[in-house]
């Protein structure tokens, strides 16, 4: 299987700030590659470097086996992208925008094909409405149509579900899955929503502060049996003391706002609650946590927090 994108030691500095720091990863053909990180982690900067909007300070980018610096136009002919907001010419219609970007990309599709592409994103009926009358979701869908208008092999979508309602998010998700399954396109999709990426991505890269945290197959990154749970109790200090003295101590991840975060096998949650109650700890609620932030905590700060717990206990 050949790499569609191969990034090696990619770095970008803005004065003193290192937005991307020695990032390396590869995207294989037909991947839906989830590119995850919290806001400000360096996702958009990385994507802008992949699309030649920003010049890297250091590192190398190869796309379709070609160096991006020396084969820019050849590569961009096969790449479509939506970068952050789907900004288009508001004073033009959806059809005019699509036609215009097709021509800039070097193709002149027939009216029928353009209408088909608008149909694919559910905008055929609004083809001749000006974009300034569109909702955020419609703009996002039109942005995707513009990204696909020249039939690219690689599609880069930067936060494609931002600002969308649940139905809009589901539509975009289905479109991404369709592009991968039926049109055999390679997709790089950035997001700060772990749950969203879990539903579509087969491989993922998680970055923080411009550095790689983890990369791999989604199925390998997440152990479906293990889950993060948040214990909500009015007796936080008591709960912490009880846990410190019990075998549950090894499951402790962190304590935030009086709530304790633990990582454990789903099947053990019931016995965990029973133990707490038996030792006089009132349990107001216990709920699974599944945010990127929590995942970061479990990956990067678990040891640190456990040590902090232990230190406080001593």
């Amino acid at each position, binding site marked *: 299987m050949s790499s569609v994108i191969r990034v090696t030691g990619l770095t970008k500095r803005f004065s003193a700030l290192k937005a991307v720091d020695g990032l390396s990863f590869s995207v294989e053909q037909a991947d839906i590659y989830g590119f995850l990180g919290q806001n400000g982690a360096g996702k958009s900067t990385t994507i802008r470097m992949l699309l030649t909007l920003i010049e890297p300070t250091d590192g190398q980018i190869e796309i379709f086996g070609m160096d991006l610096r020396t084969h820019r136009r050849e590569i961009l002919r096969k790449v479509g*992208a939506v970068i952050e907001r789907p900004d288009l010419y508001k004073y033009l219609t959806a059809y005019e925008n699509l036609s215009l*970007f097709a021509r800039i990309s070097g193709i002149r599709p027939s009216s029928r094909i353009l209408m088909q592409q608008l149909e694919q994103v559910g905008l055929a009926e609004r083809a001749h409405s000006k974009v300034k009358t569109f909702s955020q979701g419609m703009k996002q869908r039109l942005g995707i149509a513009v990204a696909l208008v020249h039939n690219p092999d690689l599609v880069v979508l930067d936060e494609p579900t931002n600002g969308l309602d649940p139905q809009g998010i589901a539509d975009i998700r289905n479109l991404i899955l369709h592009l991968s399954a039926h049109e055999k396109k390679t997709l790089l999709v950035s997001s700060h929503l772990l749950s969203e990426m879990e539903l579509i991505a087969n491989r993922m890269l998680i970055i923080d502060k411009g550095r790689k945290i983890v990369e791999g197959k989604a199925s390998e990154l997440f152990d479906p049996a293990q889950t993060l749970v948040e214990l909500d109790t009015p007796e936080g200090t008591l709960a912490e003391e009880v846990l410190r003295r019990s075998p549950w101590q090894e499951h402790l991840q962190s304590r935030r706002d009086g709530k304790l975060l633990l990582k454990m096998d789903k099947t053990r949650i019931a016995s965990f609650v029973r133990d707490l109650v038996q030792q006089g700890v009132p349990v107001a609620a216990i709920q699974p946590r599944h945010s990127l932030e929590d995942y970061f905590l479990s990956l990067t700060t678990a040891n640190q927090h456990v040590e902090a717990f232990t230190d406080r206990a001593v």
Partner: protein
Amino acid sequence: MWKLLQIELFKIFKRPRTYIPFGAIAAIILIIQLGLKFDGQSYLEMGMSSVADTFNIPYPLVMNGYLVAFVILNTLLIQIPLLVALVAGDMVAGEANMGTLRLLVTRPVSRTQLMLVKYGASVFYTILLLIWMALLALFLSMWIFGTNDLIIARDTVIEHIRKTDVMWRYIAAFGYAMVALSTVAALAFLLSVFAENSIGPIVATISIVVVLTILSEMRIPLYDNTVKPWLFTSHMLAWKGFFYSQSNGQGDTIAGSIENLPSILRSLSILLAYIAAFVTAAIWAFQKKDILS
């Protein structure tokens, strides 16, 4: 390139605000024509007062379409740079502001090509403005006021150009004005590369043109031979030179002659050098620019 230029022009002419300068020019010209139609003689008496004692001026013959066009050009060619800046200053910064610049740059078009096409579209727009102005200022004036010899006062001298010798001078003057306005467009275009919205480059261009025009018009000996000859604003009105002709021993104008063609050509080459410098700098800066908008 032609295809990209068509796309740029399509975008320009799809925006309603593109037509505001055309409306403004039409309004000003019609107001001037109306004023001169009903009170042209007073205007001429005032304008030619410096030579009225020396020459017997036949006012009804002097007030004709060619003179009205000359008056309009004198008035408007100072103001039109501001209108040109409105479009040229928006070319890159406006796209950055809308967020469409990043979409353009991720298409398989080189940044140099993109810049050349955008500047080309600004020049095309400038030419259209001038053609519009020529239609109204020259041809409409010829229709309203008729044609005759062109007589204009120049300091204490009268320039008398036969009506058969006038039209080519206007064509040359409009051609020169096109280069002069393209220089302003190039400046606005360059400033546009550094901004994320079009207000900044438009205001900056207008400010620079105003400051340099004042400097060009000031009579300060220190600047006369050092700074002024190199300011592009000092050369923007050199189109007038096409209406200054040579005369024979009897003081009659020599048809087809220009008093100081080398001076006009020198001004023209300075403007062209400015255009080349501004556009090259704009391309260079855009090549290096990180698109963060």
